[in-house]
């Protein structure tokens, strides 16, 4: 993942210049796409749409980074909110987007047995638990940063983390049996 290569988030209180913003977005692009995928239930085209909308929001100045949190935390929060808005709009659609068997295209593309099992396990968790676990294990965030991204307290994030981890371990153990 590109976190090591990513430039450190600035703590400047004033808003970034467009060039600097683009540089940051590019640096976090892989991680952002992975997070968008997670927020869109692994639907690749939805994730791409969400990410494009987020980039437009950020570059047009509709979503402003004020330097209160790390850039990645802030960007992930914007992605999560944009995906939530898109989900609400999708509920208003007249036709379903499922490909029949309920598995997303991304899941079908996953060839690794363990990765596929992990996706199945994650799907069975509550959304909050899934989000916290993805942020902590996939994106190497601390529980505190995960809480900040999701807009919940550290205490709540810890509870979601513990419960989710326990349940996911159980589900994966069942899968490997």
């Amino acid at each position, binding site marked *: 993942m590109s976190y090591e290569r990513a430039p450190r988030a600035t703590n400047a209180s004033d808003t970034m210049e467009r060039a600097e913003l683009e540089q940051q*977005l590019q640096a976090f*692009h892989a991680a952002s796409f992975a997070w968008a995928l997670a927020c869109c239930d692994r639907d690749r085209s939805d994730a791409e749409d969400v990410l494009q909308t987020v980039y437009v929001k950020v570059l047009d100045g509709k979503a402003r980074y004020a330097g209160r949190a790390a850039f990645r935390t802030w960007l992930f929060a914007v992605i999560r909110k944009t995906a939530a808005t898109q989900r609400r709009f999708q509920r208003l659609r007249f036709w379903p987007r499922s490909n029949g068997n309920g598995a997303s295209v991304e899941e079908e593309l996953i060839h690794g047995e363990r990765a596929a099992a*992990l996706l199945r396990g994650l799907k069975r968790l509550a959304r909050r638990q899934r989000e916290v676990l993805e942020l902590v294990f*996939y994106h190497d965030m601390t529980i505190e940063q995960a809480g900040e991204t999701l807009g919940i307290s550290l205490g709540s994030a810890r509870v979601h983390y513990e419960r989710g981890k326990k349940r996911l*371990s159980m589900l994966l153990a069942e899968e490997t049996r």
Partner: protein
Amino acid sequence: MNLQEWFAELREEEERRTPLYRAAPPSPYRLNWLRPLAAFVVFAIVLIVTGRPSHVTFTNEDRAAARAIAQWRPQTDFLLRMPSTGVSR
């Protein structure tokens, strides 16, 4: 069970299929017509509201009708009169 390993595997799989970064072009066309349109709508509403006459104008017919109504006295008005009517006037 080491969840980190499981997630690392998933991350590797998904990383391979990450689309290239494509900087979203700013959306000038949207701002170019949306803002003037909104300004025009607001201006039109203000114009309509302020352009309306603030006082009511009466025609001669209106005035004649109002006079006729004011002068009309009901035929049975006397029935409502009491002995004390007019004393306090």
